[in-house]
């Protein structure tokens, strides 16, 4: 046992002394930190301003109102989800934001605005919020109307207006909310029509929904006018163009339905993915370690002191500890990030953890993780022992990597959609994939019987694999010459010495 620990400690120290290990260890925390910093300091500038010159004097008010309605619709949607998520709907049950809807009619949005909009709703909601609820932040409007700057001619036609606004379209413009990039300038001529179109100038990155709102509003007004000109009474014309589909969409509350399935899959899928990444990383380290020992011809000195099996177990233990270190740092970084991002713990981590509602699930997941590590690591160890160089190893390794990763990636994609679909279930019964598939499906209603049966199958497979590949490892350590072909490989598994 002491020999195993000595080998394990040496392996751990050797890997931990390399730059590559530290780069890999820190890459995730650094990426997370960089994302946070970038999120705070390099937040993309989405807000912009627009200028509207309406020579008819008939469109401007409607367009501004349409833009405001659209903004309030998004605000209402976000507020409704927030109120439902934190159980604050009881603050005013008859309010539009209290019903958990995600689709809102014009009338509902109008009602929301009439009741004071988001600020008034938040005042009502605040006393009902639990302590861990994140603060709902009111964002400024994404687009805001700016006055035409002094000196820019508004009554000399579109070309003069364009020339006057050109410097502002390349820079910023003053608005009631401060300086903003001028994203869009619009000129509606007095005789707007097919021969005299509405003109728009953008800075190259206009707000698409803003343009869409303008188009639809102008079109609506023009349709109404056309109907009136065709003899339809103005009231009826207005009703016709304002007609909307009577539609009520029911969706499960946020955090439930498919969303809940997806959220609950987050942790199991993350574990499955972590297993894959960790075993691939530590496996390749193991491979390099064995090839180094073989190519440096130092194995004979080691084998004079300890059994080949002790060397094998020592490597598995030492590199397993490296894997645990990587997992600990990565998970630590992820947890830190989760707590530092408002609402993530409550929205994703807690519901995902809540899915582990049985203690045996934790034990089962630890078992699958451990078994998965052993299965893949033994493959890498055997390949390392068979190979004289990294080039040799590549020829064995590529098919093995494809054989493992491709089906697992396909399976993970399907688990998000249907955790108990054919592919994940079938893969749960193929020992090479059992750990990945069962980890990914663990919170999707897997029965204890299935866990016990696949666990027993997996345990037998691990023992047999370790026995057979352990023989290959031991028989290959002092082998010289070309790597064996399939026949030689099988002979090694069954204890027939070929050299």
């Amino acid at each position, binding site marked *: 046992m002491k020999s195993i620990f000595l080998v394990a400690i040496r392996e751990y120290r050797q890997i931990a002394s390399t730059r590559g290990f530290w780069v890999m260890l820190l890459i995730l925390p650094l990426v997370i930190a960089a994302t946070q910093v970038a999120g705070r300091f390099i937040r993309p500038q989405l807000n912009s301003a627009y200028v509207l010159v309406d020579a008819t004097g008939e469109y401007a008010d409607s367009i501004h109102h349409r833009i405001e309605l659209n903004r309030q619709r998004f605000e209402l949607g976000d507020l409704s989800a927030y109120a439902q998520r934190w159980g604050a709907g009881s603050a005013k049950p008859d309010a539009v934001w209290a019903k958990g809807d995600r689709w809102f009619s014009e009338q509902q949005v109008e009602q929301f605005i009439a009741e004071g909009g988001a600020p008034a709703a938040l005042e009502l909601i605040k006393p009902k919020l639990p302590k861990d609820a994140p603060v709902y932040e009111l964002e400024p409007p994404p687009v805001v109307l700016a006055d035409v700057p002094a000196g820019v001619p508004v009554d000399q036609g579109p070309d003069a207006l364009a020339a006057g606004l050109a410097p502002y379209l390349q820079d910023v413009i003053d608005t009631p909310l401060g300086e903003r990039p001028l994203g869009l300038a619009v000129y509606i001529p007095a005789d707007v029509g097919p021969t005299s179109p509405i003109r728009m100038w953008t800075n190259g990155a206009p707000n698409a929904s803003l343009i869409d709102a303008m188009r639809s509003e102008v079109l609506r007004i023009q349709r109404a006018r056309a109907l009136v000109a065709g003899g339809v009474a103005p009231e009826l014309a207005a009703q016709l163009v304002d007609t909307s589909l009577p539609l009520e969409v029911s969706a499960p509350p946020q955090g439930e339905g498919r969303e809940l399935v997806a959220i609950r899959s987050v942790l199991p899928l993350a574990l499955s993915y972590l297993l894959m990444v960790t075993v691939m990383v530590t496996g390749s380290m193991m491979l390099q370690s064995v090839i180094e*020992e073989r*190519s440096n*011809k130092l194995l*004979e*000195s*080691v084998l*004079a002191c300890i059994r080949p099996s002790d060397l094998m177990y020592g490597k598995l233990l030492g590199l397993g500890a490296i894997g645990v270190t990587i997992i600990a740092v990565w998970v630590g970084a992820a947890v830190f990030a989760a707590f530092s991002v408002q609402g993530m713990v409550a929205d994703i981590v807690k519901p995902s953890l809540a899915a582990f509602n049985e203690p045996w699930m934790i034990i089962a997941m630890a078992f699958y993780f451990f078994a998965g590590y052993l299965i893949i690591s033994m493959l890498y160890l055997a390949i390392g022992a068979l190979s004289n160089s990294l080039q040799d190893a590549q020829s064995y390794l590529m098919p093995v990597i494809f054989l493992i990763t491709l089906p697992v990636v396909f399976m993970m994609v399907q688990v998000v959609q249907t955790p108990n679909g054919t592919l994940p279930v079938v893969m749960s019964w193929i020992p090479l994939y059992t750990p990945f598939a069962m980890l990914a499906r663990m919170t999707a209603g897997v029965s204890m019987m299935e866990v016990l049966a696949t666990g027993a199958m997996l345990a037998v497979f691990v023992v047999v694999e370790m026995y057979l590949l352990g023989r290959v490892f031991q028989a290959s350590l002092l082998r010289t010459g070309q790597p064996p072909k399939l026949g030689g490989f099988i002979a090694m598994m069954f204890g027939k010495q070929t050299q």
Partner: protein
Amino acid sequence: MAILTLDHVVKRFGDFTAVDDLSFSVPEGGIFGFLGGNGAGKTTSLRMALDILRPTSGKIEILGRSPGRENASEIGFLPEERGLYRRMKVLETIVYFGELKGMDAAKATAEGKRLIERFGLGEWTKATVDKLSKGMQQKVQVAAAMVNSPKLLILDEPFSGLDPVNQQVLEDLVMEMARKGTTVVFSTHVMQHAERMTSRLLLLSRGKKVFEGTQEEARARLPGRLTITSQADPSSLPGVVAAQRIGGSESWSDWDIEMKVGSDLGALLQQCTTNGFALRRFESHRPSLHDVFIRLVGSAQEIAQ
């Protein structure tokens, strides 16, 4: 008492027999030479003694026990093919092997430092192995083999790859360990080292034992050779197998004589004197171990391989 015994040991790899019915024993103390050409079975025999390989049949006893890692604490082993962990430091390497052999870290460290100084590597103690020259790396490996002050030191081709100066350093160290009571078994196909160092020899050829015994006993296996200067033809003298005239004057001739195996040259000289066989020169040639090896192993070509 024998410290290593092989009794009718056979080792086969598939259809190839690497060691064929090999029996010998290494007495405790002294230096035992394990001689043979390439492919003679030296390394395979040593690996079996160390339990790195298991014999197909036969029995091996080492330090009075069966081969196994439990003997590692009393054995030092320097394999023919040598290497070290390139990113480990010099002292760490020696201590690691000491600990693998059951030493505690403190003792391994103290002994490791002593050996490092002895090999002149003091300033490299904390350097990683990949910073050392090949010769220095070999010294580190020798130190790793010796760190546990073994009862039995097994060296497989220990001088290969070392320059003459370092060969001498290693030779002195091995001789010193032998003087202090360590039994040394070393394999080589360089006869000069064996001739200088070994007290007993084992000669192997194609997995079979050709000879086991002292250097003198080995030499006695070869026919004696003489150069004499005489007036008469020595062909009829007792024990002479062949005599060839190689020079001289009209009255005195120089002869190269091959004697029967086991002939007593002293007795021949006495007989010449007693019987009035006139001699001006009587010069016996002691066969070198190289000659013995060529003769017994049978083929100089095997060495050349």
